[in-house]
Every structure is written in structure tokens, then in C-alpha cells.
């Protein structure tokens, strides 16, 4: 039996990698992947605790999160494709027009 701390450390590391990726990378696709990484880190914590507490509710949530993440990717990639067609770039700094 693997102790729960291992799962927590792993997901914390994954989450941090995701956050840092979002903060430091400029490529929109990579940012997307980092977001997925964060979501999955959370999923991992959920499953780990679900197993630890003998409660299936956490795993149900994970399914929901996966479904939402899939939908989000579908929409997000569609936006990205459109952005690329218009700007010939996936650099996130292109989208800095949303300001005063």
C-alpha cells in the first residue's frame, strides 16, 4: 500500500509545474497543456483521498472534471485555431488588446 503522502507530493509537484508553465510560457498550446496538468493534479488528489477514505464521491467528481476539461479543451482549441488563422501566431501576448 502506497502511503497517501506520496500521492499528495506528486500532485503538488504536478500542480506547481502547471502553474509555473502557465505563468512563464508564452505559447498558448503549452499553456493549455499546463492547465490540463493542474486539473489532473487535482484529480489525482481526489482519487487518492477517495481511496483513503473509502468514499466513492471523490471519484465521481473526477469524472465530472474530466468531462468539463474535455469540453474546455474543445472550445479552447477552437479559439486557438481561430486566433492562429487571424494572427499566424500562438503567442499569448498577441491577445493583449483586452485593456483600457
Amino acid at each position: 500500500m502506497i502511503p497517501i503522502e506520496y500521492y499528495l507530493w506528486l500532485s503538488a509537484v504536478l500542480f506547481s509545474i502547471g502553474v509555473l508553465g502557465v505563468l512563464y510560457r508564452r505559447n498558448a498550446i503549452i499553456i493549455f497543456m499546463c492547465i490540463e496538468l493542474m486539473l489532473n493534479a487535482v484529480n489525482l488528489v481526489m482519487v487518492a483521498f477517495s481511496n483513503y477514505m473509502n468514499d466513492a464521491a471523490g471519484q465521481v467528481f473526477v469524472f465530472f472534471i474530466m468531462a468539463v476539461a474535455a469540453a474546455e479543451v474543445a472550445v479552447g482549441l477552437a479559439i486557438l485555431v481561430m486566433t492562429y488563422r487571424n494572427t499566424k501566431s500562438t503567442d499569448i501576448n498577441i491577445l493583449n488588446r483586452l485593456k483600457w
Partner: protein
Amino acid sequence: MVDIKVLISWIPIFPLLGFLIIGLRVHKISHRTSSYIACGAVLLSFLFSAIVFAQLLGMPSDQRALTVRIINWIGTMGFSANISFLIDPLSSIMLLVVTGVGFLIHVYSIGYMHDDAGYSRFFSYLNLFIFFMLLLVMGSNYLLMFVGWEGVGLCSYLLIGFWFKNHDYNKAANKAFIMNRIGDLGLLLGVILIFINFGSIDYDIVFPNASSISGTTLTWITILLFIGAMGKSAQIPLYTWLPDAMAGPTPVSALIHAATMVTAGVYMVARNNILYSLSPLALELVLVIGLCTALFAATIALLQNDIKKVLAYSTVSQLGLMFVALGLGAYSSGIFHMVTHAFFKALLFLGAGSVIHALQGEQDIRRMGGLKRFLPVTYLTFFVATLAISGIPPFAGFFSKDEILANAFAHNPLVWTVALLASLLTVFYMFRLFYLTFFGTPRADASRMNHIHESPKSMAIPLMVLAVLSFAGGFMNIPEALGGSNRLQEYLSPVLNAGDNKAVHHLDHATEYLLMAIVVGLTLVVIGIAYVRFVKKQLVPVEDGQLAGISRTVYHKYYVDEIYDFLIVRPIHWFAKVGDRVVETLAIDRIVNSFGHLVTASSHVLRRLQNGSIGFYIFVMVLSIIVILTLTTVADLGR
């Protein structure tokens, strides 16, 4: 036979219906229809008033007071006001005058206003005025009277400013309205004081209990009520609006500013005669104000050259004479003079209107003259009215003025002298006006004289009817000394002599004959002087700039308007300006603006956060999450 109470309640409804029908369809209704509706409404009111009057005459004199309650208007704890009408000798006389003279003036307006763009609007206002005047007269409590009082003020405003495209006319309308407001405040305070002291505003509760209230309070009440009368009836010091009110169409001047509305103050004081009789001080005030106004306005009228202005000052002066009668406690004489004055002054105004109409708008008597040949009907009727106002027997004015003078003599010969002087001045300026207008050589422009024409029938017939009334109006109250029986006074006595019976003067017949002889003799002398000056010598008043000395002061109305302007209007303007510059600009504006500046300044700082760099947004977000998590953890640990 229809119940008399139903008849009474319909009297004010006709003009209201007329107003609503014409007023709501003012652009769709034809001129002819609107004038028929308006005249018909007032005629119906008049017929009903006449029936009610006849019924009242058929009753025993101590039962001649009918109260018709229509609806409970305001009913709360401790205060109730009904819409109910009181018909007694006083209000029935007023009803006949208001609807009768009102009807004649409505008919006259058909001809006078015939080519005016606001024809239907004019008739709707006239009907509304009659409605409010009837409310004022018929109301059986102070509140309903006050509604009518304010309503006629409103109609007066609307009709003075009827030709609203002329800026000066609007100013005159505003002046009338504001001056009346001052008086109305006094009236309102008086009514409030009555309610506080009597616990009711119904006449039939207030009057029987009047003697149970302390004299000081009654004096205050009556003086406050009289301030209202000063405003509405144009007495010193609130009279200056009436001459300016001549800006309205001439029928309006005749109806509102001569015959009916301005006499509302006289009616109100007479209605409250029980209260006034109990406070000698207030009566004294009424007497003094009336005397001063009568004399003062008569002197101004001597030198005015606008035909309507002369008549306006004459109205002010005659109203003063009525208040003299009231102040002497001779209420029925005041009402009598009010009735005859309504006849001959309406006739004078309508005659003046006819002259103005014939001369296409000329109002300056220096540009008239010699109109006798061109306007025979107007000339004759105007002559009757002039004789009536001058008090030549047996015209109406003789009887009413004689009664007031006799009462004045019985009270105090000094009062009699002043009143006599005022009425002699009246004779002079009226004959000056009459001679300058109708005698001598025509002085009007040739272009005006070419188009001169006698007025149409609709204008001439009211003139003739009023001329008959001006001639015969006095016969309703022939004094005992002349073989009559003071019928009007007797008819009014249940209302007017219920309080202190001061009304009847006690002069023996010899004294009365002597007084009459003196008055009539002096009147004839004054007419002679006027005849010599304006017919024999053909003197014409000089142009505006050539007057000097005292006559210039009088011509400029003693500069009262200028004095008021200096003493009241300018300080208020100055105060308003200071308020604008200091309070408004420095305090209120600053506070409001600084709120705006605060928002702008802080947003200048805050907007730097929204720099468009998504990385920065996310960084702040993550940082904030970390901070919140840390804080909650620390808080949890601390617990």
C-alpha cells in the same frame, strides 16, 4: 318640480363640463361650437341660479339657508371637509352676478375674440374661471372657498398671459400670480388659525361659536383673512398687479378684473362679517386700507392715458370704497356697491373693448377722440356707465355710493370727506376718459379711422343689457329717505346682520337729503370742469416726456412699482445671486464635484492594473490564492 338641492348642485357643474368638453378637444372643436358650449353652460348656470333665487325668495326669511352636501371630501381623525354648497341670500346674489354678468361677457367674447387663434382655449379658460368662482361663492366651508380662491387666481394667471407670445404679458401674469400668492398665504394662515381655534372649517360651526373665542385671536384671524382679500381685491399694498393685469384680453378685464374675481375679497369679508364685527381693530384696518386705496388709486387714474389703465385704477379705487363700507360695518352697502359696480364696470370695460376693437387695438386716449359719430351704441352705453359710476341719480351708482357715503358720514365726517374726495376724483377721470374718447376731433391715425366700424351684434347686445342694468341696478335697494324700502339690505340681513347690528346708519332724512344734494352738486361741478377742459378747450394730455413735477410722479403711479422693485425684488435677486455664487458654487458644487474628481483620480491609478498582459493577471491571481490560503492556514493554526 325638481328638488332645489339638485338644481343647486348642478350650478357649478355646467361650466366645469363646458371647460372639459372644450378644453380636452381644443384643436378638434370648431370655433362656433366651442363658443356655443361655453355660453350655453354659463346660461344654464344662470337660469338655475335664477330659479334657486326665486325659490329662496318664496321662503320665510329666517329659513333662507340651504346646505347641499355632495360628498365627504376629506375625512380623518379630527378633521373633515365636505364638498358642500351653502345657498343663502349672500351667495345667491353673488351667483346671479357671477353667472349673469359672466354670461353677457361670454357672449361679448364671441365677437371680440372672433379672429383670435386661441379662440377655443379662451372659452375653456372662461368656463373654468366661472366654475372656480362658483365654488368660491357657494362653498360652505373655508377649504372649498380656498379651492375656488386659488382656482380663480389660476384662471386669472392663464387669461392675463393669454397672449403668451408677448413677454411683457407673461411678466404681468407672473406679477399677478405672485402678488396674489402673498395674499393667499395670509388667507391660508387665517383658515389654519380658524381650524386650530374652532376645530372645524365649516361656516355653520365657526360663526355661531365666534363669540367664544378670545378677541385677540379673532383679530389675528380677521386680519390674516383680510390680507388674503388685499391680494385678491387689489388693495394697498398689494394692488399693483391689477393695472398690469390689463394685458389680458378686454373681456377678461371686464369679467375677472372688474366684475367678479376682484370682488371675491369683498365677498369673503362680508361672509365673515360675524368675525369682523367682533374685532373692531380689524374693521378699523379694513376701513383705513379701503380709504387709502380709494383715494390713492383715484389720483393715479387722473393722469393715465391708457383707456384700460384708467379703468383698472378706477376698479382699484371702487374696491377701496367697498372695503370702506365693510370697514364701517355696513356690509350690505358693500355688497350693494359690489353688485352695481359689477354692472357698470363690466360695461365700461366692454365699451372700452368695443372702442379698442373699432380702432384695431389702439388703447391710448390721446389717439382717440370724436368717436361719438362712428360708434353710437358704444357711445350711448359708455355714457350710461359713466353716469352710473359718477353717481348721477337715478343711475345704479348713485344709490350704492350714496349709501356708503351716508354710512361714512354717520361714522365720522372725516371718512366721509375722504370718500367723497375719492368719488369726485372718480367723476373727473371718468368724464376725462369719456370726453377724450368720444368728443372733439378724431385724433386716431387715418389708417385706423378708415377701418372704423361699430361692433357686431354679439358685442353690442351685452353692452345694451348691461346699460339697462347700470341704469336700473340701483332700484333694488332704494333707501327709505327716497321712498324705498332697502330691499336688498333686508334680503341680505339674515346673513349680514346676524352679528353686531352696526349696518344701519341712523341719520335723519333731512341730513340724508343734504348729503345727497352736496354730493350730486359737487359731482355736477366736477363734470362741468371736465367738460370745459376737454370739450370746450379741447385739451389733450401731453406726451409722456413733457410732464413735470407732481403730475409726473402721479403719471408714473407714484413710482410704487419702482419702490417695490427696489425694496423687495432687488434684494431678493441679490440674495439669490449671493446664494448662487456662494452656497451653490462654493459649497454644493464643490462637494458634488469633488466626489467626481475622487473617482476619476482613483481610477487613474487603478487602471494601470489592467495592462492587458495575461501573464500578469494570472500571476496576480496565483499570488492572491497563495496569500489567501496562507492566511486561512495561519488563522486555522491560531485557533
